[in-house]
């Protein structure tokens, strides 16, 4: 069974290592990871308020919340896809359960996301955005996002071992998905005929469960929550099942 473990200490060690590399020079490392979404937020803010001329109330908060989610989601997927190949030498010599690698990637992603909430909080205060108790709901949102992302990572990681170009393909798909997810724009600006694509995009459900408490200060409605949770569980089940089937064979491809 892929998740029966005497290996929890190993997972925590791998997470430690991942974070240590990232935050090697503590503050500078952290500033560096925050710089990208901050810059992106600045650029988008200028672009959308001057060029496209539509107004979302407190757009910087809207877009930063979305980008933090997106960075967690896309980086975790790409890194978990590469994690098996990166640890190929090890997997060929030791009977380590292979699921520890994607799992450690997603857990470090969650920790990064939690840390990134601090600058977001600063932005909320600085822009006078109301802080509502609904934000206490975020741990549940993040859990849903993490389960969803781990599912995707488990599904894709073995494929990336067999077909090296899947990683690039997924990169392109993620790029398209970014534009099909209401991160940089509000749903309201979409023309009627495109609306359905975005509406049926599962990533949107997961995103909104994360962003609603921050931006609208409300706990997501039960219907949204149910859909998001079911999507996450379904993708996780699919990922875990296919991982346990394929991961036995992939050692030969490493």
């Amino acid at each position, binding site marked *: 069974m892929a998740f029966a473990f*005497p290996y929890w*200490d*190993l997972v925590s*060690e791998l997470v430690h290592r991942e974070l240590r590399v990232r935050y090697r020079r503590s503050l500078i490392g952290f500033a560096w990871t925050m710089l990208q979404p901050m810059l992106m937020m600045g650029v988008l803010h200028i672009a959308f308020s001057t060029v496209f001329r539509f107004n979302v109330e407190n757009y910087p908060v809207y877009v930063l919340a979305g980008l933090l989610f997106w960075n967690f989601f896309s980086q975790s997927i790409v890194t978990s896809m590469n994690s098996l190949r990166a640890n190929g030498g090890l997997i060929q*010599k*030791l*009977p380590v359960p292979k699921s520890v690698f994607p799992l450690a990637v997603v857990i470090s992603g969650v920790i990064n996301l939690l840390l990134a909430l601090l600058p977001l909080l600063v932005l909320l205060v600085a822009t006078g955005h109301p802080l509502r108790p609904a934000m206490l709901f975020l741990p549940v949102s993040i859990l849903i996002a993490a389960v969803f992302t781990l599912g995707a990572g488990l599904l894709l990681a073995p494929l990336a071992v067999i077909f090296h*170009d899947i990683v690039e393909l997924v990169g392109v798909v993620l790029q398209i998905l970014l534009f099909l997810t209401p991160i940089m724009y509000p749903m309201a600006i979409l023309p009627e005929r495109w609306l359905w694509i975005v509406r049926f995009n599962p990533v949107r459900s997961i995103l909104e469960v994360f962003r609603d408490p921050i931006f609208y200060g409300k706990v997501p409605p039960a219907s949204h929550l149910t859909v998001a949770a079911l999507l996450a569980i379904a993708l996780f089940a699919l990922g875990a099942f296919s991982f346990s089937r394929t991961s036995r064979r992939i*050692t*030969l491809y490493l």
Partner: protein
Amino acid sequence: MPPLVSSPEAAQPLLELDRISLCYRLAKQRLPSFKDYAIHWVKGTLVYEKFWALSEVSFKVARGEVVGIVGRNGAGKSSLLKVVSRVLEPTTGTMRFDGRTAPILELGTGFDHELTGRENIFLNGMLLGRSRREIRERLDAIVEYSELGDFIESPIRAYSSGMLGRLGFAIASAWTPDLLILDEVFAAGDASFTRKCEKTLQNFRDAGVTILLVSHSAQLVLDTCTRALWLDHGHLIADGAPSEVVTAYDQSTYATAG
């Protein structure tokens, strides 16, 4: 106490392999890309070449046996150890084994060269499935065995290959497993390291640990093992007393060498 005499029919074998086969499916064309694969799949031109690294290998190992595996390069020895270690899943056949293995297929697998020796003990121990607490308990013994002294606090990129080998072996042999799986690992070190490894091996054997080892050294197999297996082209062609199997193997090597 004399070590157990080879007795495959002993009551409850520790390890039992039943017609284990392992097939590497090699695509005739190298197809590491999804695009190529899809094209060939659509055209129906996917051709595979099958390579059987192991064919129908069956044997039982009783508790306390020390089994040496001999055979030429590419005979399937390492593949067999990987199947027993559960690194590779056999293509067909079943394996029965309950207990903990200590697979030492290569010394220092998973070492992180930026970390210190001490940090690597933890990382490596965890890769072997040990908890932080278990490692802390054995830490002093590992450091002592590795003879690294103060170097244990330096990043291991500064270590010589001998030091790395000693540290790797110290970690892997720190716990008494039910089954020790060794693949030619002490070929790397100097004479004193090799002697030390052999001593450890003998201690394990005397403590009743079951051992499965691959070695090119006929002497080691003769001295240490209670039983020998001879693999050739993935087939198990001899299974018996080390002296007989090693003699037969040696004769065949000379015969083909001309």
